């Protein structure tokens, strides 16, 4: 096998592994969401398929797979077909730069392999933001191509909402970028090594607590989740932009929404909560003399952080009522934006004076 072939094979394996992990996470999430919502509302959640309903995701997948694929009369067939794919690709492509574990390398036939990040590009976080912003196209075009007024309204709402809150997501992470001095997620995570007091949520000289709150709220809005799920507000718009979709195309939109949730959770964990770093210095595995398997502990911490963030999504859904549309816009532009901008100024000043004192 040539060197190029080997590199290609390694990259494809990594991509397949990450895709697999994400899809399995989405499967778990669909069940977890219904279970958590059930428990919070004093219900059991799904109980029929398998013990305690744990096979429910497979039942859902099979159902969606065998449903009739309907293209409504008067719909724009090309865009109606393309829109779910346009929604799905940006949701998955962002995972390429997420560091899942420590940045260690090993050699296979003289080729250096980084097992825990597919690609460490030096504009990592911008890459994620760029592709996240493209997710809006799938929603808008899906809404327009359906030739239904509910779908169109849902699509237009989502366009306005995603643009407004994307800005806040972008501005809220600028503080972290100033502290880290890099756009690469691998470098940002490495800069937070050594105990939870080094995580950018708490780190001196400028704890990013306000930025984190803005990021959390804005990312909930950007993924169209309750309480910001106006593009698919079922009491007003039937099901919003995917009213006319059925079968696999609906499943694509569904998958994209959950993959986006996982992605924003991973970014939150990597930027604010130290990524794969444990909340204490070093790792327990290294202490008990097994430094070669310390990556297990690190990836587990990353998973714990991501999943607790995902739990927050469910918690918000069970707790909060939907905002009205003008409230949503006013909140985004008049509350979130000034906080994010103020955070940039404060962080810049703090970092500047901190460096002067040193």
């Amino acid at each position, binding site marked *: 096998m040539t060197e190029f072939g080997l590199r290609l094979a390694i990259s494809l394996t990594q991509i397949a592994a990450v895709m697999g992990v994400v899809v399995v996470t989405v499967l778990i999430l669909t069940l977890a969401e219904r279970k958590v919502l059930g428990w919070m509302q004093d219900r059991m959640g799904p109980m029929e398929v398998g013990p305690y309903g744990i096979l429910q995701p497979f039942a859902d997948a099979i159902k969606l797979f065998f449903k009739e694929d309907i293209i409504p009369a008067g719909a724009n067939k090309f865009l109606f077909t393309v829109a779910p794919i346009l929604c799905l690709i940006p949701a998955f492509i962002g995972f390429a730069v997420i560091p899942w574990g420590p940045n260690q390398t090993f050699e296979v036939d003289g080729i250096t392999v980084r097992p825990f990040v597919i690609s460490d590009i030096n*504009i990592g976080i*911008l890459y994620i933001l760029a592709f*996240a*912003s493209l997710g809006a*196209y799938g929603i808008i075009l899906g809404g*327009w191509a359906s030739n239904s007024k509910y779908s*169109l309204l849902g699509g237009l709402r989502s*366009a306005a909402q995603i*643009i407004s809150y994307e800005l806040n997501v972008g501005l809220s992470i600028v503080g972290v970028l100033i502290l880290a001095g890099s756009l690469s997620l691998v470098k940002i995570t490495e800069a937070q090594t050594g105990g939870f007091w080094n995580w950018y949520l708490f780190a001196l000289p400028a704890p990013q607590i306000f930025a984190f709150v803005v990021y959390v709220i804005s990312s909930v809005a950007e993924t169209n989740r309750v309480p910001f799920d106006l593009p698919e507000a079922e009491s007003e718009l039937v099901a919003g932009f995917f009213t006319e979709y059925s079968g696999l195309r609906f499943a694509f939109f569904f998958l994209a929404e959950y993959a986006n949730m996982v992605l924003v959770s991973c970014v939150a964990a990597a930027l604010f909560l130290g990524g794969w770093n444990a909340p204490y210095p070093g790792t327990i595995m290294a202490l008990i003399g097994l430094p070669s398997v310390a990556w297990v502990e690190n990836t587990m911490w990353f998973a714990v952080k991501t999943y607790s963030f995902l739990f927050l999504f469910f918690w918000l859904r069970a707790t909060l009522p939907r905002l009205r549309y003008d409230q949503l816009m006013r909140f985004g532009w008049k509350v979130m934006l000034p906080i994010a901008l103020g955070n940039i100024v404060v962080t810049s000043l703090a970092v500047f004076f901190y460096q002067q004192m040193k």
Partner: protein
Amino acid sequence: MSQLFFGYFAGMIAMTSILVVALRNPVYSALSLLVMFFHVAGLFITLHAEFLAAVQIIVYCGAILVLYLFVVMLLNVKQDDRYHSQWRIAAIVCVPLVIEAVVLLVGGAGTMVSSRNAEPQDAVVTDNTLAIGQTLFSTYLFPFEVASLVLLVAMIGAIVLAKRDIGESDA
């Protein structure tokens, strides 16, 4: 290899730009503009300007073009209302452009090649973002600030114009 990529990106940019004005359906026009922005970002990447490529996608694809689509869908523009079949104006605009292209291709071919070979070596910087930031806030600080001021004025102007009706009806 890089020639191949350049050829692909340049060809797609030219083709999709023509489609933007040639297509009958305004939504398809906006979509071919989206494809064009993507390929411009691709050109930036072949020049090792990753930061510019990301900003290109975030600003143009993620924000500006979404607003275009928004307006196109909201207004529901009739397909006949657009400025098609205006051959005279098109000819008047195209003739100088064609002459210019011929002159450039025939007259300046030798110098073009040498300058194109020189460019990529200058553009390869270890940290693209750092380089852009430092240039923007040292060499080009004054133009940068002026540009931002102009944009601010334009933004305030737009708000004043858009909000005039509401203010008058309240008073």
